């Protein structure tokens, strides 16, 4: 991170696209600014009071036609810019399947990350180069925002729901991580480093981390402790769906809709089970709203997700 530069480091695929758009905007708005400033300057000099420039009759076309001309001209330019920006955004909309999924929890004033194998870190994030990484984030108190300038990415992290962000890092190195949404006293100190490593290095790093119980295992314990297994276990007498393989598949609902069982869906199933009732089941599942906190939710969701693997096996 050198001391003086005019362009931020670029270290993700999205960064290149954003920079291109930014340069395009710079050129176009630079041209418009030059045009406006140039005209102002020329008119001011030429038509200053007492100058001998002719003022006579205004040509007729200079009135309505010019006006309509530049109005439509600007409108089309604006629509073009919208199209460019919109298309760039849509290209980066969905993460590729199989992206490395890292859970991030924000709280006043620190970032906690948790890797799929259970490795945890605080105010730091290690990611492999060239691999798609998906961050699933939630906050335990107020709204924060995960901001890595070198990736040109930012996403608010909100209590009570999961937000996602994905990227593919292109350059190994250390980059700054900021909290960009004002979150109280130490907002300015809520930051850290994102380290992009070669995939081998990342694998080595992750393996070397103290192996704690991972999210899914904790979730499994909660699953029993909260009584979920009473209904959802294969041996249970209650008629409830088996959760193995539930994650990611398309679910038919009692009211005829079909939706994908993503994190948000699982989360909703736990908090407001009566909203999306699975076809063929009675809406008897109680809501766990208030009984589970954000952390528990993350654990339960991770557990349900982990069951996907078992079904495939």
């Amino acid at each position, binding site marked *: 991170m*050198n*001391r003086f*530069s*005019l*362009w931020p480091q670029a270290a993700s695929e999205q960064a290149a696209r954003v920079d291109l758009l*930014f340069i395009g*905007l710079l050129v176009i*708005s630079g041209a418009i600014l030059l045009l*406006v*400033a140039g005209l*102002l300057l020329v*008119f*001011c000099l030429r*038509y*200053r*009071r007492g100058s*001998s*420039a*002719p*003022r006579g*009759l*205004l040509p007729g076309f200079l*009135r309505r036609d010019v*006006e309509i001309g*530049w*109005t439509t001209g*600007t*409108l089309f330019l*604006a*629509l073009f*810019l*919208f199209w460019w*920006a*919109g298309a*760039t*955004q*849509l290209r980066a*909309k969905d993460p590729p399947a199989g992206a490395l999924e890292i859970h991030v929890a924000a709280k006043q004033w620190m970032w906690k990350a948790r890797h799929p194998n259970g490795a945890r870190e605080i105010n730091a994030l290690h990611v492999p180069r060239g691999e798609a990484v998906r961050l699933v984030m939630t906050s335990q108190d*107020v*709204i924060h*925002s995960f901001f890595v*300038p070198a990736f040109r*990415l*930012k*996403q*608010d992290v*909100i209590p*009570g*729901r999961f*937000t996602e962000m994905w990227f593919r890092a292109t350059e190994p190195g250390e980059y700054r991580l*900021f*909290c*960009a*949404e*004002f979150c*109280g*006293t130490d*907002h*300015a*100190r809520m930051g850290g480093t994102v380290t992009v490593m070669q995939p081998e290095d990342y694998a080595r790093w992750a393996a070397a981390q103290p192996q704690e119980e991972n999210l899914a295992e904790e979730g499994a314990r909660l699953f029993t402790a909260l009584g979920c297994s009473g209904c959802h276990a294969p041996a249970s007498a209650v008629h409830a769906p088996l959760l193995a393989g539930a994650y990611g598949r398309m679910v038919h609902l009692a009211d005829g809709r079909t939706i994908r069982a993503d994190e948000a869906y699982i989360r909703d199933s736990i908090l407001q089970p009566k909203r999306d009732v699975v076809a063929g089941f009675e809406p008897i599942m109680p809501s766990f709203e208030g009984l589970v906190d954000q952390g528990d939710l993350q654990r339960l969701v991770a557990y349900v997700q982990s069951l996907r693997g078992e079904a495939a096996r």
Partner: protein
Amino acid sequence: MSGITAERAVPDRPSRADSYLTVETGLASWLLTTDHKRIALLYMAAITVFFFVGGAGAVAMRIELFTPQADLLSADAYNRAFTFHGVIMVWFFLIPSIPVILGNFLLPLMIGARDLAFPRLNLISWYIFIAAGALAAYTLLAGGVDTGWTFYTPLSTAFANGHVLAAATAVFVAGFSTIASAVNFIVTTHLLRAPGLTWFRLPLFVWALYATSVVMVLATPVLAMVLLLIFAERAFGIPIFDPLRGGDPVLFQHLFWFYSHPAVYIMILPSFGVISELVTCYARRRVFGYSFMVYAILWISLVGFLVWGHHMFVSGQSVFASLAFSLLSFVVAVPSAIKVFNWTATLYRGQIVFDAPMIYALGFIGLFTIGGLTGLFLASVPVDVHVTDTYFVVAHFHYIMVGGAVSAFYGGLTFWWPKMTGRLYPEGWARFAAVMMFFGFGFTFFPMFIMGFLGMPRRYHVYPEEFQVWHVLASAGAVILAAAYLLPMGYFAWSLVWGRRASANPWDATGLEWQTSSPPPRENFLVSPAVDRGPYDYHPAHTGPPSMEREPHRPQGGQA
């Protein structure tokens, strides 16, 4: 009726018994006045104080940001400084400034009325404003608030440790004052226009005030409600936005920006009006494309209600919602482009005089264009994702609000100063201040674009060292800017005592407000004026003013 004879019929100066400044004396005659001109001056006194209080917050921040470490302010103190700066500057300075000072003074004069439609309501709204201001002052003295001017939940409802309730109440109360003035302006414009003054003969400043008032009336109540919700949640634990009980903190942002985006147009539309008056007068030309200018104002104020989501591109709203808001933001930029081009074209074949108000106006056009164009960067979703909540945004809005609206305010104040006080300001000093403001502004805020793009987040009082260069530049520029804002206070005060007496129409302008003496009599016009032509009749239609000499213009109306 010949405009020239009509003008002659107007005395330059009213007698002491007529002038609104001297017709009555004593403190009570000011504090209980229902004269819109005096109320405008009351507002001016209050708002000037708020500007410097808000400015003091900026000064504190700029000193703190001189170095990357925290040396002057603690984290909490800094957070309170920018919150207070934002709250005061937005609700107690910029939103009221042009409408309730210049607008209050000029609207009845410009349409040939004796006063606003509801003079007592006008006075009441000043008292409401003062009550709100007192609450704001209380907030500051009690220790301040630390939520940002945006009051995001759940920080403001559950976690902030400042005086959120007092601050929210202050803004809430100020809203009533705004609504009262807006209702007054709307009714006045509809029902008190002079005979012959049809809608499409109204000066653009009146149009701008009218559109602003409509936006105020429809947007401000939403802010009032959302503040009430915050108040209820924080004070009584009524869970509206509480995620633990099923509430959605992002819903707050929707409601807040539904107000606050239209609010930015509340701040800029009156400036558009002022600039149109200044440019035409000093270029001695009819404004180019009058009807397009009017439609542009209306377009901005209507579409402005539909773009609030562009403040929430990273809040987790769906990509398609973001794209829709992005599209509408681009669409709302087009009428601003129309305005910029029309002002520029108004100069074409003019007889341009570079008096201080014109310098402010030219500065406005340049700075507003830069601020507006960077608005397009922000409206582009992928770019905004990178620069949102960084200094890029801070630079964007200061370019429009400080470089734009505040310049327009100073320009308008300078332009109408003789009308308001009957005295001419010292021209040389005023030009110097205008030029200094332009350059001081550039030094202060241009570096913010660069550091914002480099990734410097906003609302940070400590920051990585690589950004220090830019912060030092900005802080240094702020010194020049502060001087440029203080200087007019000096020469305006000087002019009150030693300034030359102004004639009724020192700038040879066409508006009705110049068809009465300076300062105007209590009843505005000795004889009710009538209007027989459109605005800005500086020269016959379809020709420019002749090359060498100035042709005597035809005023819009006069006291027949």
